[in-house]
Structure formats: C-alpha cells, structure tokens
C-alpha cells in the first residue's frame, strides 16, 4: 500500500519538525495568548468530527437505526470512559461489547 508509506514518512517528518522547531527557534519566546487559546480548542472538535460520522453513518448515509451496532456500543462506551477515565478499559469494553452483539445478533 503506497499510501501507507507516504503517510508514514510525511507524519514522521512533520512530527519531528513540530517538536523540534520550538526548541530551535522559539526557545525563550512566548506564543501570543490568542494562539495558545486557539490551539487549546483544536483536539476535541477534530476528534468529534472524526467520531460522529463513524458512529452515525453507514455506507455514506445517516443511520440511527437499531441496526447500527457502532452507535449502540458507543453509548455505554461513553459512560465507561466518563467513569473510568481509562483509554484501555474503554477500548476493551467497546470491542468486547461489539463482539458480543455480533455473536448474539447475527
């Protein structure tokens, strides 16, 4: 898969630069307060923008029907994540519940 090699290389380069530039250039200087606030609000909306289509669409169409396993597994997974604040436990719970659902509801 050629795309895999390209994205692995591009991400390795950008990851290194993003981390090294502040040490090399901005060491001792400060980002503007507005920039700091803006960056603080990037990760959550980006993750939600990825997550919502994954949970609410199927084959390019909206699906909030009972047939959408992802949606019904996601609801208790949110609760597990909220209560445990543990990434591994949340992933394990979601994977196990989805496997169980598929086993019980073919």
């Amino acid at each position, binding site marked *: *898969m050629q*795309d*895999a*090699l*390209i*994205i*692995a*290389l*591009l*991400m*390795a380069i*950008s*990851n290194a630069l*993003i981390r*090294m*530039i*502040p*040490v*090399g250039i*901005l*060491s*001792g200087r*400060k980002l503007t307060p*507005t920039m*700091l*606030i*803006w*960056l603080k*609000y*990037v*990760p*959550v*909306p*980006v*993750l*939600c*923008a*990825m*997550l*919502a*289509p*994954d949970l609410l*669409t199927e084959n*390019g*169409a909206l699906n909030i029907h009972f047939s959408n396993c992802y949606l019904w*597994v*996601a609801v208790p997974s*949110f609760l597990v*994540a909220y209560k445990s*604040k543990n*990434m*591994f436990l*949340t*992933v394990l719970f*979601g*994977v196990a519940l*989805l*496997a169980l*659902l*598929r086993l019980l509801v073919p």
Partner: protein
Amino acid sequence: MTARAAKLTDPNFTVPRALMASLPIVAAYLPVAFTLGIAAGQLHFSIFESILFFGGSLSGSAQSIALQMLRNGLSPMTIWPITIIVNLRYFLMSSALAPSLSVWPKPLRYLFSLFVTDELFALHASQFRTEVPPPWYVFVINVMPLIAWTTGGVFGHLAGNLVEDTRLFGFDFAVPGMFIALVVMQIEDKRMLGLGVLGGAIGLLLSLSPLKSWAILISGIVCASVGTWMEKCKTR
C-alpha cells in the same frame, strides 16, 4: 521554568528508577499501539511501513485519525494537514519544556524534543519544576515508551494478519473506542463539551456532502476559532 541541573553521576538517578518512572506510560502505550497495529494490518501495511509508522510518529491521536482516514479512502495529502493540526499541541509542550533544558547542549535538546508526548510532557514538566535530571536518565525514560509503541504496533499488525475476520471479534471498534476515551478525557468544561458537539455536527454534515475530504480540517478550524472568540468575549 528554570531548575537546578543534576550532576551526571548523581546517585539519586539510576536506571531502575528511570525504568520504573516510564512503566505506567509503557503499560498505557502497549495495548493502544497493539489495537492500532491491527488496524494497520487490516489496511495492508507492510511490516516495514508499520515499523516506520509507529517508530517515526509517537502520537496516538494523529495516528488513529490517519488510519481511520486511510480506511475511508482519503489520500495522504488530505490526511497530512489534519495530523499536523492535531499534533500542534506538541509545539506548545516543546516550547514549555525548552527553557528547562537550556543547561543541555543543543543537539540533546533537539533529540529530547522528538520524544515529547502528552504523557512524557506531564512526567517531565512535573520533574523539571524542581530539578533537571541528567540527560541519560531522561532518555532512558523517553526511549522505553517508544519501544513499547513500536513493538505494540508491530505485534498488533502481525496478530491482525493472523485473524481472518477481525470484525467478528469487534476489533474494528478499537479506534472509535479510543476516540471516545480521548474525547471524554479532554472535555474539561461546558464550553469544550459544546465545541465537541459542534465539531461532531460539522464533521457529520460535511461527511455527507461533497466536502467530505475537508470535514475534519474545517471542523477543527471553525470550532477552535469559535472557542477562542467565546473565551475572548468572556474575558473582556
């Protein structure tokens, strides 16, 4: 942030102590990398590509996003800017830690910055407030999570190839599950919750439109700008 630099032979800093300090991070990284490795295997990454993908980028959120977008058939040039935006927080973290490392030679500072992740930032920021350990000690702490991340990813890749129908085992929910945990853990207040909902709504609407490829980028930029505007309005 300026702190006292420990001597190279300070007896307080030992290899076992460094390994113990990195252990919680290693334990957290291994299973997550394993599940992402399964996703990489399903996308037909070669072993070399998996090693490069996991060893070259120590960033779970961006890597899970990249895998998900590859699964959705998007091109690397669409995925790359998203991963840069998601990883911009490392820019801030490196900036915050850099002053403490002024006692180190510049090449070591650059090398250190390559290992800045959310977890290692938290560990080092806490340590550097009082004392900067010798470089060898810091690098033992940093290298262990990288080894765990890369081996976890490769083992996941190998396991994923052995399992013919991973959907049966629910492994395809590993990445959405990780997103759910990351979102929940990062929502600190009502404003962040609102912006998450807005981000999800924009992402969903655009994913059903011809602008599908730009959904995440537009959502991130719009929501971060709205959040900044709200915070500025409140402080005025």
